[in-house]
């Protein structure tokens, strides 16, 4: 044993420079896994201690209509029984806010109206002093700093919410109950619940969320939660306990952790491929030493053990370096994500379990990827010290194939372990193999395609192409790694271009780009008149009546759902739908079954047209009956037709249910409107402010602002995937450096011969540049082809976007990859240019 360790240490001492990249490959992969897992575990740890803070209570009841009296009565009963200690109410609503000084600007905000007891858990932190409800009473408001910046306001200024003026009495630094990283329509504004009624925002049909927050004694809180969930099953009031919050977020985070770790694993596997190729070349270089050791009495097993020990030591060192890198990255996390996590106090640091996993996987992957090349050690005969022409092994090496199969199975196991799912592990492995095979085949095809260059007049180009195809040049490995990196980056960039182009098309020069919601019937005409007066020659607004309804019963040939429980049991059926009524089909709709009603004649009974997507849950047919709860009123309608809606064309609106006019004519409902706003930002802002001033309850959604937000999200996602792609590309560069350094002895010798034969240093340099340039161009083309296929498939089938090849991006990607590989290859081969031919030939 001592001999094995001693020899392993001596080998590392002699070869560590050549194997440097071995542990950098492992380090990057391990670093990615440890960093991603640690950050998510840190977040999970913080959430575990602050789950009550997230909903500011033990149990949160919420409804889109004012809390029904029977629910209040139920809570009161539970309070009398000692299971509810305290309650408080809150209302959340997205609305517009304007400065009180009459300036023509307005912003959408997320308003929350609370009572004195809010919050039961967590602390509302203000920038200027401590929070007390007294700051809100009598027309006070607390706002997020973003709103102050957006509307150029200061503490003490007045703002108008609906029709009521409020005084800004403080700036919110952090607020309990604000979801982690949640999408928000605007900055938070906090007011007293008592003041909300007088704003006029709670008019009929408004999109408010009414909340009842409960504080409950711990011993019976879960029992209370179960009781409320059962009792509220038919009420469409949602009950959420803090523990469910923790469970849900916990599940999300576990999923996120596992998927992100797979990203790290992909990088680690690429590193492993590099490790494998380095080990193979390393063994080739060590053949003579192995033969000497065998000649001196070393058995194959002991010699193999020396190199295994070396790999384990390098894997462990690489993993340790990876952990150190992860530590450095995590140390910089708070400055990046501080604003994202809002109220949550997260202590960022390496988590012990992530470090353990990283170290284990690093060593395991090192071992798995090097064991097959290391098995060659067994086949080295000591007789090669006397004679080089050792006959190759004729028979099948069953041990090698057996070990290869075991390694493949182990890698699937590692992937499944990291993904937390055997299925995902298998899918990842299959995907990786498929990608590798495709890239490999594409690489072979492209290498074949450049073969005619072997007959080029240029000596340098001829030699470069010959070098690309020569045995042992690691071309396939480099193509795989670099190709995969450019594939990731170009693929996501192409998708980003498709997405942003699609949004740009959606708000083309004539399409509506402003939407108004919560228009009361009485405001409809006045609002149209205002818009006509403000909007010049633009077409008049398109106003659409809307109501909110839930499906309460379905009576079809195949399905009969008579109760709320049954409806709830069908996934997605019980949610609240926005419905409308109209005489005509819109231009983005097509009837695919049944018939559209004749607008000139009134219907004998209520009729509804349903969107085909709804059929997935119900298998309804034309002629079946459906029951709806429309604002407490039960309506039964016959399915008159089934429509297909082109959801991409959202300007014409998309509704699951469209009713025949007549049923709701007299029912209370609101309108939404869409129109093309002024192009000039100032005029647009003035128009928005005027709208809000004249119709305070109406909310304005500016599509241009939304587009900016979406662009921001798309850019962030693109950046994230680009970082991953860059890491993959970095792995590719490392593999390239490794391959170059491992085969450099051959190049140095060849260069020495060429120099002796009269080749200048410049010619040798040109050969190197061309060789790596050609290799990079092939890798870039492989990646670009993959990226084109990926962006086409995702755009066409997943996102249903119009796809067009990003030609400039593709060509640019190939050129950049080619230059990248040429630079890395030439820099890594610097010794080839530097060595004097005589010393090299003497050494040989």
């Amino acid at each position, binding site marked *: 044993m*001592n*001999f094995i360790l*001693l*020899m392993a240490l*001596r*080998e590392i*001492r*002699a*070869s560590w420079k050549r194997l440097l990249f071995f542990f950098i490959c492992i380090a990057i992969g391990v670093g990615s896994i440890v960093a991603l897992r640690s950050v998510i575990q840190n977040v999970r740890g913080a959430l575990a201690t602050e789950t009550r803070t997230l909903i500011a209570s033990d149990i949160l009841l919420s409804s889109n209509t004012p809390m029904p009296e029977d629910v209040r009565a139920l809570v009161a009963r539970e309070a009398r029984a000692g299971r509810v200690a305290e309650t408080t109410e809150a209302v959340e609503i997205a609305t517009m806010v304007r400065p009180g000084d009459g300036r023509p600007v307005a912003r959408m905000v997320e308003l929350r109206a609370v009572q004195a007891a809010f919050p039961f858990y967590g602390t509302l932190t203000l920038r200027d002093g401590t929070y007390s409800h007294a700051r809100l009473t009598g027309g006070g408001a607390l706002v997020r700093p973003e709103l102050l910046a957006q509307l150029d306001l200061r503490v003490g200024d007045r703002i108008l919410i609906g029709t009521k003026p409020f005084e800004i009495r403080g700036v919110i630094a952090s607020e309990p109950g604000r979801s982690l990283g949640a999408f928000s329509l605007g900055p938070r504004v906090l007011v007293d619940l008592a003041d909300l009624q007088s704003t006029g925002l709670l008019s009929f049909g408004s999109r408010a969320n009414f909340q009842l927050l409960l504080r409950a004694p711990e011993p019976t809180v879960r029992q209370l939660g179960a009781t409320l969930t059962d009792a509220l099953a038919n009420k469409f009031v949602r009950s959420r306990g803090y523990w469910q919050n923790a469970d849900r977020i916990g599940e999300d985070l576990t999923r996120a952790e596992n998927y992100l770790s797979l990203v790290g694993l992909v990088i680690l596997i690429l590193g492993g491929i590099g490790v494998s190729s380095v080990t193979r070349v390393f063994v080739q270089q060590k053949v*003579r*030493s192995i*033969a*000497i*050791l*065998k*000649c*001196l*009495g*070393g*058995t*194959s*097993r*002991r010699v193999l053990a020396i190199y295994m020990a070396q790999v384990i030591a390098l894997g462990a060192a690489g993993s340790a370096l990876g952990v150190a890198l992860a530590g450095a990255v995590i140390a910089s996390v708070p400055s990046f994500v501080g604003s994202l996590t809002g109220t949550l106090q997260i202590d960022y640091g390496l988590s012990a379990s992530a470090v353990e996993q990283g170290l284990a996987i690093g060593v395991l992957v090192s071992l798995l990827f090097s064991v097959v090349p290391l098995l060659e050690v067994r086949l080295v*005969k*000591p*007789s090669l*010290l*006397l*004679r080089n*022409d050792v*006959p190759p092994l004729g028979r099948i090496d069953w041990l090698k194939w057996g070990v290869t199969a075991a390694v493949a199975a182990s890698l699937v196991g590692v992937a499944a372990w990291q993904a937390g799912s055997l299925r995902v592990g298998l899918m990842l492995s299959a995907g990786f193999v498929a990608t590798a095979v495709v890239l490999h085949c594409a690489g072979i095809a492209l290498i074949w395609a450049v073969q005619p260059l072997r007959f080029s007049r240029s000596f340098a180009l001829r030699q470069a192409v010959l070098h690309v195809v020569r045995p042992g040049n690691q071309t396939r490995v480099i193509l795989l790694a670099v190709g995969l990196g450019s594939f990731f980056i170009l693929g996501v960039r192409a998708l980003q271009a498709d997405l942003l182009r699609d949004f740009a098309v959606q708000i083309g020069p004539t399409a509506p780009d402003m939407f108004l919601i919560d228009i009361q019937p009485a405001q409809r005409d006045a609002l149209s008149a205002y818009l006509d007066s403000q909007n010049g020659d633009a077409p008049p607004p398109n106003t659409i009546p809307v109501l909110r309804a839930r499906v309460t019963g379905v009576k079809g040939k195949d399905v009969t759902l008579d109760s709320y429980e049954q409806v709830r049991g069908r996934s997605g059926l019980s949610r609240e739908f926005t419905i409308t009524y109209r005489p005509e089909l819109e231009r983005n709709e097509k009837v695919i079954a049944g018939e559209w009603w004749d607008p000139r004649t009134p219907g004998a009974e209520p009729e509804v047209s349903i969107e085909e997507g709804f059929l997935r849950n119900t298998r309804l047919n034309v002629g079946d009956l459906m029951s709806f709860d429309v604002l407490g009123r039960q309506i039964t309608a016959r399915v008159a037709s089934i429509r297909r809606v082109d959801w991409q064309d959202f300007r014409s609106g998309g509704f699951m249910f469209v009713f025949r006019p007549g049923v709701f004519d007299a029912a209370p409902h609101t309108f939404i409107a869409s129109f093309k706003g002024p192009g000039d930002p100032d005029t647009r802002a003035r128009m928005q402010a005027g709208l809000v001033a004249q119709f305070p309850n109406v909310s304005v959604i500016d599509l241009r602002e939304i587009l900016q937000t979406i662009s921001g999200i798309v850019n962030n996602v693109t950046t994230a995937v680009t970082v991953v792609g860059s890491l993959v590309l970095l792995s590719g560069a490392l593999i390239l450096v490794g391959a170059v350094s491992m085969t450099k002895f051959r190049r140095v010798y060849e260069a020495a011969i060429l120099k002796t034969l009269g080749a200048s240093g410049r010619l040798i340099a040109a050969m190197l540049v061309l060789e790596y340039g050609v290799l990079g161009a092939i890798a870039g083309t492989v990646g670009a082809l993959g990226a084109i296929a990926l962006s086409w498939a995702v755009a066409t089938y997943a996102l249903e976007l119009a796809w067009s090849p990003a030609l400039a991006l593709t060509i640019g990607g190939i050129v950049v990859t080619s230059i990248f590989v040429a630079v890395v290859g030439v820099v890594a081969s610097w010794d080839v240019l530097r060595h004097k031919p005589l010393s090299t030939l003497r*050494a040989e």
Partner: protein
Amino acid sequence: MIELRSVSKTVQSGDHPLTILHPLDYTIAAGQFVAIVGPSGSGKSTLLGLLAGLDAPSTGSIVIDGTDITKLGEDALAKLRGEKIGFVFQFFHLVPSLTAVENISVPMEIAGRRDAMARARQLIAEVGLADRAHHYPSQLSGGEQQRIAIARALANDPPIVLADEPTGNLDSGTGRIILDLLLNVRRTRGATLVLVTHDAELASLADTRLTLRDGRQVETRVGAAS
């Protein structure tokens, strides 16, 4: 004692089998100094490799101290080499990643000797290279490398020392030093010495001279030393 019984070696040369050593019967007594001579390609090195168990004969058997080594597996052969055979190559074959003294200690470390490093230092001093102990092979001259290789061959006090043209790659002065070292080994340790050489003068010092040509034994002559 080493006994060769109808030992031959045939290899594949392209599509045709090529016999590089025809069946040979020969016995080397313990403590004897045998020189194997012959022109290039006569099968000298092949025979030496077969004696060391570095390669397996196509036919026949080789018995060393009563053990038929042709029946041993790779690992048993390696063990046998470690215990009984010291080998000196024409091209030295030192492990390039180890220092001179480490190269000498390796066979003893493989054998599990606790005094490996101390004895390696003693051996390197015996070959006159104590001051080069921590140099790597690439930092040593050919003669120095061969002296290290001889010290390594003697590390486990093997009863048999095999040398494949040990002076063939050295100038005559250095070759003389190496030769003196090998003869001294035989004299002081009583080891069996089998040496492949082109050097007639060197061969004349052997107890017995075995001449090969085209893989066949053409002559066995008792030398001056006997």
